[in-house]
């Protein structure tokens, strides 16, 4: 319920920054299409209400309320949900600090660091999930943080 209220509140708050939400949506569309290219529908659980705003308009995305039901999880501040079961799923992070802390579990992320937005995919985790990224996205693959 709190998440729904937050979502409604943020919808009002971000009317003026529609451009930012739109661009975030385009970025996640490209990331998700690259990670799961054969899937027609992807179930996503996201921690950050702002991210939910961007995701809800992607046609092939279904937002779920429980992490266990998701194909892809996008965590923001709290890493307590990262149980061994969850770590078998594709986990993305919007925090550089969390990726560093849980790099054995988190596949990569879209986050702010050094004053700019970054995208990173960890090579060993891509291998673990048998994911091969398209050529134009190889520039975002890192072997170490």
């Amino acid at each position: 319920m709190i998440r729904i209220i937050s979502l409604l509140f943020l919808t009002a708050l971000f009317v003026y920054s529609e451009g930012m939400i739109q661009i975030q949506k385009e970025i996640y569309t490209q990331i998700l299409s690259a990670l799961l290219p054969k899937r027609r529908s992807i179930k996503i659980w996201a921690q950050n209400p702002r991210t939910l705003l961007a995701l809800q308009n992607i046609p092939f995305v279904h937002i779920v309320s429980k992490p266990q039901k998701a194909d892809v999880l996008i965590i923001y501040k709290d890493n307590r949900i990262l149980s061994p079961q969850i770590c078998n799923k594709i986990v993305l992070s919007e925090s550089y600090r969390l990726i560093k802390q849980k790099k054995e579990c988190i596949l990569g992320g879209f986050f702010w660091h050094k004053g700019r937005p970054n995208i990173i995919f960890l090579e060993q985790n891509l291998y673990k999930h048998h994911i091969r990224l398209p050529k134009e996205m190889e520039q975002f693959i890192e072997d170490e943080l």
Partner: protein
Amino acid sequence: MRYFALFLPFVLLSADLSTLLQKYKASSDLSALTKKESAGIVQVFTRQELEAMQAYTLKDVLKLIPLLHYTIAPNNLYLFSLASMSYLPTNILRIYIDDHDITSATFTSALPIWSDMPIEFVDHIEIYKASASIEFGNEPASLIIRIYTKTPERDSGNKLRAILDSKGSKGIDFYQADTTDKGSYFLYAHGDLLRYKKERRTVRYRIDRDSDDTLFFGKFTHQSQSIEAAHYHTHRHPFLGYGKALIPTGGGLGAAHDYVHYQYKKKDTTTEFSIDSLTYDRSYKDVQGVYYNDHGHAKLAQQEWFTHYRDTIFYAGIHHDFIWRDFEATVGALFKNKKSAQKGKFDSLRSDASLTKQMYSLYSDLRQYFSNHQTMFFLSLKGDLYRFNTTIPQRKKLIIRTGLIYNFAHTRVKASFTKSYLPIEMYRLYPNSTAPYITNPYLKPLSYKLLHLESIYNAKNWKFCIRYSYKQAKNFVHYSPSQGFYNRKDLIYLQVLENEWRYYFDPLNFIILNIYGARNSRHLHYSPDFGINLQTFNQWERWTLYNELIYKNGYEKKRGGKIAHSLAYSIALKYNFTPDLALGLKAQNITDSGFRQAFSQIEQSVEVYDRRIMANVEYTF
């Protein structure tokens, strides 16, 4: 062909992921703004703009505020003059770093110390003109500059920036930021030696306006609490000084400001405490001596003219925000205890005095929305009480600001009326009848009424604003060597008109054009009364290009002589070798025909922003 690059903004069509990241950054910069529409005319310099401009110090930004000329005073301080007018009183302005007011108690302004502060630690800057500042609590001012520092959430990591320019200036900036499970920190250090063109004043003397600065800043947050602290030190050479001949043989300024600001936010209530300590050491030496007041008589100090001011300020404030259906309100209270102590040496004369001022204030800012937020009515009220520890009479002042913001289709119309005042600088009130000035404990604060009308049209890719203000002010403070500080009795009227046009090809490529003009009731021409600012921003793959054109018209000086019009063209180009390493080159006032400041005492005018080329290296790690 000289300005060809200025009119050639390239358009990005590609939407690859790297470009999307750049656009996301640009859009996020806009969404990070905290501007309050009801507080006045808001002009914002976003992070994207500041980075493209390769802005290094505050004057690189403030010179672009339409209607205001950021000019240099004879004692090497940067002050504002309003189009057509002379220097504005320093107390017209307040500068905030995040939520901390960096105003000096003695001078009721931040400009005597912070006028050319470094800005590498700044995320964005909001300028509020035609304001009453009630919305921000604190003491009143009609020009508010809010400097928002970078956030550890976005800027985690380290950054090093170094600059070198063709005049021999050098500077270095470093910051480190990170987040933890429950908080974050941001640490910043800066040092610079700024060098300027040394124009010849006489056969023997070249004007020297060099300066050196150091700044340390830190902010720490832990859950709902945050603490910010800074130490800033500036040293400035004498420039023209304030001697009889304006040919200084020594002197200058050494000033420092330290503060700690604590803030606690619980739900909608914010509680704040802060302590400031400032020192301001000024000395003048001149070939013909420097005037000072010796018990009512003007004398010339031949050997020594030195003042030391020390301010200590304690501030406590609380405010609470309410939202009830379509009604919003902020109510708050604040207390300030300000002490200004002065010591002076004027040849054989010595002065030593201090003054303490206490300020109690209650304020409210009420906003009522109608028709699904189509219309907003706002009313702000503030009552201030000043008490002094001497025979200076206590003062009660009331400020009122009311207005309407109406939105229809793509248009927003704003109208407001403000009745306010500016607190008197403490150095004008004490010490009575001793050096260096003849002070006046009975001075009245400058008071003004302001009517402001604004219309903004927002289309998909462009925006157009037209603004008109009418200002009526009384009790201007003047100084005469025989009478000291006194209030002028006459009313001064001022009308200003300003247009702003922005066109966005996309979030990374855009143009900003400002055209403004002003007229005062006394038909005085102390500065240009018409000007045009044009800025273009372009970003393409690894390149960032910025063009800037500032035009100010010429005018006839009151005491004869003509100041020619000025046209300053600057360009900045940056190349990102990697996402972490960038090299920038900035050429300022390329044509060497920029704004020159006139001084009433001398024929000579001085270039405010000289021609220079700056190299800039930025490395994040």
